[in-house]
């Protein structure tokens, strides 16, 4: 049974005509062509389909799209290439096949929003719900630490030059489906 829903994705707004019980993952990946939101386990345990719902990591394979309507949905496509988390994952080579990595990047973004300089145990706790079968976890830990440093440096720069960079790190919007 289809309903017309309005989704707020990466800062834009999009109308979809769907069964509201359809998993959000299916809609953003298949209908909105946001390829970073990946199907893998289908039971909310691997994190490959991670999106941020109102800033919090959520397993989009378990979220009925009807419950996501009206909320702020962020996917990896909503980050900029110069986002510190992305930059750090690239520079630390924190990826192998890459299937799981956008989920790790979003979970890291959310972690650093709450804990700008996380302890090792906090990093593990924040990312324990994301699986990387290739086994890049050691590199991912290094990337999170580097990302925290980069974000800190940018904040300092921003405070020093108040006219520059008024946009938040997540404000870029190349993935806007509109």
């Amino acid at each position, binding site marked *: 049974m289809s309903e017309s829903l309005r989704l707020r994705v990466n800062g834009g707004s999009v109308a979809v005509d769907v069964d509201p019980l359809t998993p959000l993952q299916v809609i953003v990946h298949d*209908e909105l062509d946001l*390829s970073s939101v990946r199907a*893998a386990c289908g039971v909310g345990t691997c994190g490959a389909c991670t999106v941020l719902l109102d800033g919090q990591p959520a397993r989009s394979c378990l979220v009925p799209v009807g419950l996501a309507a009206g909320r702020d949905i962020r996917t990896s496509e909503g980050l900029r290439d110069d986002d510190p988390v992305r930059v750090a994952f690239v520079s630390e080579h924190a990826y192998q*096949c890459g*299937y799981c990595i*956008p989920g790790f990047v979003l979970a890291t973004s959310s972690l650093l929003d709450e804990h700008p300089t996380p302890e090792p145990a906090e990093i593990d706790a924040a990312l324990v719900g994301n699986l990387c*079968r*290739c086994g890049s976890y050691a590199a991912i830990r290094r990337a999170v630490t580097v990302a925290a440093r980069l974000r800190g440096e940018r904040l300092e720069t921003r405070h020093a030059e108040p006219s520059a960079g008024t946009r938040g790190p997540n404000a870029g919007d190349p993935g806007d489906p509109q």
Partner: protein
Amino acid sequence: MTEREPSMADAGFAEVADLAAEARDRVAGRIRYAIDTALPSMAWAALVRSPMPAGRLRGIDVRVASAADGVLAIVSGEDLAREGLAGARFGGLADQPILATDRVSYVGEPVAVVVAEGLSAATSAAAQVRVDVDASVPVFEPDAALRPDSPVVREGRADNVLSRWTRRNGDLPAARSRAARTFRDRFSSPAAQQASLEPHVCLASWGDGRLRVWSTSQNPSRVAAELASLFGLEASAVEVRVPPLGGAYGGKNQAKLEPLVAFASRMTGRPVKLVNRRADEFVTVTKHPAVVTIESGVDEDGRFTHRSAEILWNAGAYALSSVPVARAGGLAVLGPYRIPAAAVESVMVYTNHPPGGSFRGLGVSQAAWAGEQQVDRIAQALGVDPVEFRRANLLASGERLWTGEPVADAHWLECLDAAVEQLDEARRRDRGARPASAHETLRRATGVAVAMKHTITPARSEAILALRGDGRVEVRTSAVDMGQGVEVVLARVAADALQLPLERMIVVRPDTSRTPFDMTTSSSRATFAVGNAVEAAAVDLLDRVAEAVSVSLGVPPDRLDRDGDRFVDRDGGRGIAPAAVAAAAPGGEILGRGTFVNEPERDVDTGEPVSSSHWHQGAVAVDVAVDVGTGVVRVERAAGAAWAGKVVNPPGARLQNEGNVIFGLGPSLFETLEFPTGAPAVSDLLDYRLPTIADVPVELATRALEGPPKADEPTERHGLGESLIPAVAPAIGNAVAAAVGGRVRDLPISPERVLAALDAGAVGDARDRSDGP
């Protein structure tokens, strides 16, 4: 639902023109996998699978399903028979039908393909197909399958033996009588699942007499050849393309879904796509369970007098990679030690399990779990440090493997020393260990193990390097990118050999209509074998370019000097850029071709070829903490060292080494797959536990060891995909035994087994104290 306009299936992955941008795309989630492919007018497939492990297939009832909305066709063995394909077979021993026809051999065997306009229509219709099986008695265990009265799994194999690999060397009876002490042990490993996050996916389309396939395959050349053979096509009429894989770990070796998807597409006249659901993955391919019985004798000085082993493998119902698995495990089980007399019998047995396939470590993990734990047990019994015992017995270059063949290039001692040294350094940094609690229930200990793994010998890889008119070079091979970074490695090898900037290289992804033959991207062979083919192609390209320039300038090739991007006439001073010559060449490119075959060296004494052109070599050392209250094992620190020869891409080498240890934690500590009634007891990633970031030791140090193999030979580049994995479980097992006094002999090292070993250790593990089992 709104229909998204399908894009061309291979848009976005056909080549890597910018390695740096590709890295950013991978992190951003922009790269496309097979699961993202689509074609115009594409239909979806869902499989109907056998509910029974064994029996005669009486028929299928499709009346309800075929009337369902959106269903285009239900393709089954009847269609195969009508098309003359009921007897067509593919796979490791050409034992696998496209779909089950007259009988079923495992729970989950594909029986029919439902093709529908959408995925949900296909899936719900498939659930409404009734499969009628006249069930017969299944056999699940190899020892039962070997009994004379056992049911027969494969016709023509009355004894259920899929393969038997045996090797003997030296005078075993004499060596036995020389042994001061003899040790006999039995170790086992269960099935496991490769569990790539991207499942198996296949998209097939027919047109103009050609078959086009997009597949999650580690060996597109072989899949293309098998499809051509099955459907009676010229080899050139089949195109297999492979996007980047979302993980593989051996599981995507061998053809699996491609034949049935291609057949369904042919029957419906539509492009057809099939995506395995997670539960399907658990019946598509597994790791081979194995039971190893191993005997070793040592003399008064603590040197091996002999070792012998029998390995009984559970192949499941079809061969896939079972023959090489039995051989790989058989070669590795006795370890890289000086062993004067030895015998191994490695027997692969058909059962009614889902088929076992390649699993990162290919049979060596099961073998090393036994061989390397027994080494520790011997050292313990002799009162010798396990590291020192290994040092005294490990092979040096030029010595002979237990098979009698020479090992030209042995580095296990260096690997062991580097692993132990790194673990010592990690301890000095003193991180990783959790603080002792008030009620301390942790016991800590150290364990080591070494690993030896063959590479397929002989095997062929081909490469084409194409210089284009714009000065860029296409690196065309059929090596599959599955996260191991092969595209970076091949681009670097090509750039170095051509003395051109890396940025000029364009790595073309596998497309059998465009990229040349490669045996397989497995066996950790791509860096070595495909790398050598690329290097040979570079030499050829430079020759072809010199020829073309020579013709263009009208001067003989030996008068040409290379000056940066130009070739210059040494005498006349005229010059031209090769790119300009390429632009004017037929097709707008100049091609260099290279082929590499790792022909085995021959033993100078016997003339026999060696088993492997080189050995993947590694060592792992771990510190574990065992909670004696719960039996939970935590790896607090880990160190590994693998022989690389020459490292091509240092960050990639580090990822492979670290990934080996991390991946290895799963089968060591928790991964197991049981089939109590033929169906998998777990079939999702909630119940099948994979390692998480929290399982990874904070101190994880690895090294890729470099150096020339022999004084007079060029340095070789070796892959690192599996050099450490086989050592992980026995290193942890050895550490746990040292911590609790008893030994866990069956994988995984679960809390229940650790507690049982603790109980055994408390009274002195009878099996560990005595020589016999």
